[in-house]
């Protein structure tokens, strides 16, 4: 086969260029740390990477939503817990004020303390978190409870029974609030009734005591509901944390350069390139003219 001068030169040049191209590719991967710089580098990998990235973003957002939900529920829990212990004291006082041996001054004193407790529970009902009222339903900008000392003593409710739902899991929009229309009215009417009766010198009747018990039960029930939601959020959170770790490692496997592998290949390619240069130099130099007598 006849080899012309240009074939020799072209082949040399081409091989060197191919070597340089391979070097450049490896250098790019190493420097950027990314195995996939454009979709055509690995179309299936790129598609998978996009899916994982979206999932990762969604999990990050779910995490934030979980945090917000958790904050709200914990704040509600704290307030309801205080309400429960305060109502326990109120129940003791009611019993105390209900015995026949109690005199009018004694009754007045009990009425005073019960009134303080009533004011306290109204304060609890008007608790806020971050500028929003916890127990106003959806009307988080409006103070829900207003106390009027009578007789007749009453507490009015200016909120609504709306839900505040937060997106805490895929397909799950969880209502995180406790509306002031549930349970609270029973508490206030029981306490208001007791205060009015005692001020009027009437001993608390059995129906008043029953109402007091109901109020206490309602508060405990509300607290239990909040507790259940908190523990549900906990298990969701554990699972999403695991998911995020999995996704992070999957994404890294697809997108990131395997540094050790690429470094080895870079070294190997450098050697090949140097050999190609040496060969090129040897091949293009001699020709017959070097050997002919001038």
């Amino acid at each position, binding site marked *: *086969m*006849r*080899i*012309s*001068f*240009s*074939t020799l030169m*072209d*082949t040399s040049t*081409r091989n060197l260029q191919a070597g340089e191209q391979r070097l450049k590719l490896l250098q790019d991967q190493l420097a950027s740390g990314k195995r*996939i710089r*454009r*979709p*055509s*580098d*690995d*179309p*299936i990998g*790129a*598609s998978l*990477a*996009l*899916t994982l*990235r*979206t999932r990762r*973003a*969604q999990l*990050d*957002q779910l995490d*934030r*939503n979980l945090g*917000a*939900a958790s904050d709200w529920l914990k704040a509600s829990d704290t307030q309801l817990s205080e309400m429960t212990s305060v109502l326990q004291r109120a129940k003791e006082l009611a019993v105390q004020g209900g015995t026949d041996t109690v005199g009018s001054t004694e009754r007045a004193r009990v009425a005073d303390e019960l009134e303080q407790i009533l004011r306290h529970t109204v304060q609890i009902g008007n608790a806020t978190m*971050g*500028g*929003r009222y916890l127990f*106003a*339903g*959806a*009307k*988080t*900008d*409006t103070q829900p409870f207003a106390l009027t000392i009578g007789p007749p003593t009453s507490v009015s409710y200016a909120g*609504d029974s*709306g839900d*505040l*739902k*937060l*997106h805490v899991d*895929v*397909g799950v*929009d969880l209502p995180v609030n406790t509306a002031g229309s549930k349970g609270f009215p029973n508490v206030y009417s029981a306490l208001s009734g007791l205060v009015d009766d005692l001020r009027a010198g009437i001993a608390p009747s059995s129906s008043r005591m029953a109402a007091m018990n109901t109020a206490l039960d309602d508060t405990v029930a509300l607290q239990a509901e909040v507790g259940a939601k908190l523990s549900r959020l906990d298990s969701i959170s554990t699972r999403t944390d695991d998911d995020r770790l999995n996704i992070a490692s999957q994404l890294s496997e697809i*997108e990131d350069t395997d540094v050790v592998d690429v470094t080895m290949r870079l070294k190997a390619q450098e050697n090949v390139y140097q050999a190609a240069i040496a060969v090129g130099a040897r091949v293009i130099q001699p*020709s*017959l*003219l070097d050997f*002919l007598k001038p």
Partner: protein
Amino acid sequence: MPGSFGGLEIGLRALQASRLASELAGHNIANANTDGFTRQQLSLVATPPFSIVPFNNGVATEIGSGVDIAGVRRYRDDFIDIRFRAANQEMGRQQTMMDSMQRLEAVVNEPSDGALSSLVDAFFGAWHDVANDPSSLAARSSLTSKAQVLTARFNQLAQGIQAEQANMDNLVTRRVADINSLATQIAGLNQQIMNATTSGAPANDLTDKRDLLLDQLSKIVNITYTVSATNVASVSIGVGVLVNGLTTNTISSAADPLNNNFQSVTWTAGGAPVAISSGELQGAIYQRDTALASRLTSLNALAAGFISSVNAVHALGVGLDGVTGRDFFTGADATDIGVNPVIVADANRVGAAANQATLPAVQFTAGDNTIALQIGNLADSKTMAGGTATFNTYWNTVVAQLGVESRQARNLQEGQQLVLIQLTDERSQQSGVSIDEEAANLVRFQRTYEAAARIISVMDGMLDKVINEMGR
């Protein structure tokens, strides 16, 4: 040979032949690096013999009379040329497509943190942040600014694709001009070759030049050509004739209002469309009208889906200022999507709460987050591709297909390049100059020249004997 001076004539012919052969070897060496050069060799032939009748024997014998130059042989295989040009036009097409696809991938820039899919995720996440606290102006402002980043990216992507289309369109215009220029040059060379051949000289170097032009032309567009017995080339594109011996028919490009005012290529005389099926020209047209156009259509569909889905829900939402029925997005597709400037001006106007009364009455509670939650959850709802894909999966499919097509273009181009290299080597084997070979030839003809000079000296010596010393 009859006549006393015949021997000198033989020597003279030998001298001339050797000298010309050396010059030709020199010509080859000088042009070893010239593009498109075909090596040439002297074709030598023995001159017709003389017949003489020797004294004793009555039978005529033929005596040779030296060497003559039959012509200059050009080592060119036309069949390799045909195959080379076919591969070249395919290469032109693949190269154009590959380069354009890679530029498109750079515009799309997925997967990466600032790319469209990340911004879509961030947008829906921002709606959930508002749902978590609808009274927070910070969350609302964050939403409007993330929405603006998203719409800006849509605009950028659309512009990027359109810019690449314009780039391809520009390439079409330039290549049409190149074709016309090359055609004129080929016709000019046809004229020169004709002049040279009629005066008897072989037009080898002119033919080389014309072959080089044909190579260049083949890369740009699909040509077929024939070379007549008188070495005049005719070139056609499809059924239309581009070069007809000494005359050319030009092609022209003009804006086509039926195709976004992109250039369409027609024959200047008659206006028939040019049948372009390969070469850089076809690659550019395909990219412009099909590959890039379909990506723009998909992007616009995505943006339009965004606009209609989000606006449909948002219109039911009430801003903190008590106004309902607002659009969140303005515009119709990716080129003009934007965030409603009224909402940008005051993020409190974002309609996060639901309207609890029937229109035209408006009633809402400030802490209500129903609409914000619903829009945030649009990320998971299958509104695209006839109800089978979410926004993200739709775009994911577009990106994956782009990756596959670009990869394929790259593979085809690399394959085609190997074919072209193979053919270049084949051509070079046939037509390329080998320095070693020419050097050996130089030695050969130098020695022959020396020997020819010797012949003349010897003849001269013999004549000298006859003329000057005989019969004195």
